[in-house]
């Protein structure tokens, strides 16, 4: 059995779903960040897979994936800074406690 595009896509979808479920169920900010990382990596997997099967000879997908990794690193830095502030204000990193914007 050869591994084709659908296998990658299914794997990426499962990865993405795991990420979403992590984001939705975790109350710990770091856990949410981890879920986001999972979703980003699911997207990266798609990008690479699509590049492998539809644009043979080019490296657009790989480059995109590199950019995503870089941006994810930057984002992680920003998110950690936010968490630090959050912790300063609420003495916790439980995101459900940060509901002061409710209408």
């Amino acid at each position, binding site marked *: 059995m050869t591994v084709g595009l659908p296998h990658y896509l299914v794997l990426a979808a499962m990865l993405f779903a795991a990420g979403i479920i992590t984001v939705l169920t975790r109350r710990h900010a770091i856990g949410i960040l981890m879920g986001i990382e999972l979703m980003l990596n699911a997207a990266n997997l798609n990008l690479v897979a699509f590049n492998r099967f539809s644009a043979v000879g080019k490296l657009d997908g790989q480059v995109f994936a590199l950019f995503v990794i870089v941006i994810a690193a930057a984002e992680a830095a920003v998110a950690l800074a936010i968490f630090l502030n959050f912790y300063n204000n609420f003495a916790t990193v439980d995101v*459900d406690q940060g*509901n002061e914007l409710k209408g």
Partner: protein
Amino acid sequence: MPTLLTLLLLVVALPLCGFAILLALGKRLGDPLGGYVGTGFSFAGFAAAVAAMAAWISSSYGFGYGVGPLVRSFAWLPIGEHAGQRVPGFLDFTIYVDSFTVVMLAMVTLISAVVHLYSLRYLRGDARTPIYFGRLSLFGFSMTGLLLSGTLLQLLVFWELVGLCSYLLIGYWNERRDARMAATKAFLTNRVGDVGFIIGLCLLVSFVGNTTLPDLWVMLSPTHQTAMSNGLLTLIGCLLFCGAIGKSAQFPLHTWLPDAMAGPTPVSALIHAATMVAAGVFLLIRIDPILTADARLFVVVIGAITIAIGSLCAIAQRDLKQALAFSTMAQLGYMVLGVGVGSRDGAGFHLLTHAFFKALLFLAAGVVIYGMHHKSRLEHYGGLFRRMPVTAIAFAIGALAMSATPYFSGYYSKELIVAHAAAWSQLAADSGRSGLWSLALWVPVIGAYLTPFYLTRLWMLTFTGRPRDLEAFEEAHEPGMLSFPLVVLSGLAVVSGFDWFPVRSMVDSSAVETRAQVSALTGPASPVNPLEHDWPSRVHLSMPDVETDTAPTSTEAGDDRVEAGAAQAAHLTHWAWLAGIIAGVVIYARGFALTERLARLSVLSAPREWLRHRMYFDDLYRWVFVGAARLAGRLIDRLDRRVIDGLIDRLALAYAALGRVTASADDLIVDGVVRGVSSGVLTSGLGVGQTQGGRVRVYVASAVLMLALTVIGTVAWAVLR
């Protein structure tokens, strides 16, 4: 002519001015000054009336003394066209003046002026005198206006004003209950008569369309009228006479007159002499030419009954003023009976002479009452001659004049009426009627004997004998200002009957003028001039259903009968005054001593009680009319409570139930909708607000959900398409 008319209008206008000024400035003028203003205007009115009289007698125009009346007509009320209107389609406003009017004006203004003068002293110190004098002036205006009225409608207007003024003046002492009651009684009793008057007037307007007097005389004279049936004309005559019954206090509406004594005594003098009661007789004299023989019979009967009641009740009264009130009633009965038997001139003459001596008697009684500190019962009097000689002599002169003592004014006027009554009953006997008809002679004759008796009784009990109330007697006095009017009126009470004094001659001249007026209206070609009769045949005209063969075809036959009547009357009543006076002096020589002894006999005490209580007419009326009114009131009250209130209560309950239903419907439906909307909004708002909980994960979940839905939708869309 203009001066005469101006003077006549001035006579009416001056009292009105006085009234207006007192009405406007009365409070500012205060006690004595307001009285002076009223008195000044009334004297000015009298002066104008005297000047008018002089102008009238010396008038050289188409009217005046012995020539004809002054008639001025204007179109007044548009009522639609009827035959016999002066201005087609209009009721007239007419001034009708003949000698009788002129002399009445002079008399009324004189009495009014004298009463004003007298009241100045009588009511001195009363804070409300400006009101009193204002009302007195209004009274003068009303009466003079009534005298000048040439149409019955105008007459009615002033007639009601006179009634109003008498109401206001009788009730002047409004803090006294009896005065208030008497005023109301006088007013209401007069209304009863006025209903008849107004119905008669309505009939006249609907059948003739005109109430102008000279025209009515011509159109409705019983001898040649064609406008309506004789029965209808009789009805109208009787209805108009009903007004006079009320005003002139004739049976059965006489009960207000004695009660009216609750007013101030000068007012009584004015009402009894010049204004209120004179208005009724004046009306009767004015409508005399249209009275049918049957209506005259009614008038005669009422007059005779009134003479009887008045004369009898006057004997037993214990109050000086009430006795005089009943004497007025009797004298008014004479006048009414006089008109009934065809002696219009006699009635007019007696009205004038009576005015002088009755005003004199009342003002003299007023001095006594004033001097005795407003005690008016005979029990308190006695021996007052020593204290009030002028008053005693004036009262005696008035009493003698009223008793028809020869050479006093009352003698001439009463003789005239009694002579006509004698001729009338003679004619009745000649035409084969029952003896009952001769009561028209016998009642006045017996009245003529009773008059001097009760007046002597009053004089004896008041001025002679021992004082019965020593305390009041010691303080009794007669103020000079009150005595002066008595002197003036005493003179008039004596001389006003003489031929040279312009009373009798004016009354006679008014008959001539009336005849001239009627001739002018019917024209010389008229076959029958209804008033072209001398007084003998007037008596004949007054007799219902006389056979033609007994009618006096020649005036000589009529003259004979009247001369016989006059002779009979003179024979019957010539010494009545002396007989009455002697009887009075004998019985009351020692005050009440003899009568008290006589009253122990039950034969005499029962009728005395009966007369003292005014023949129980008041009690009868109270029982019948007041009782009936109360009963009707109770019935209506019950009806109101049970039926109408019940109905309304049910209706209210039904409305309340309906209201409750509406309220709940309102609550459920209208409010429910509103509440439902608002609670829906609230619930949904709260629900929506739940989602905006500020929880990051919820936001994320919804975003994911939406994304998922979008994706699924898009895919489904693509697949299904």
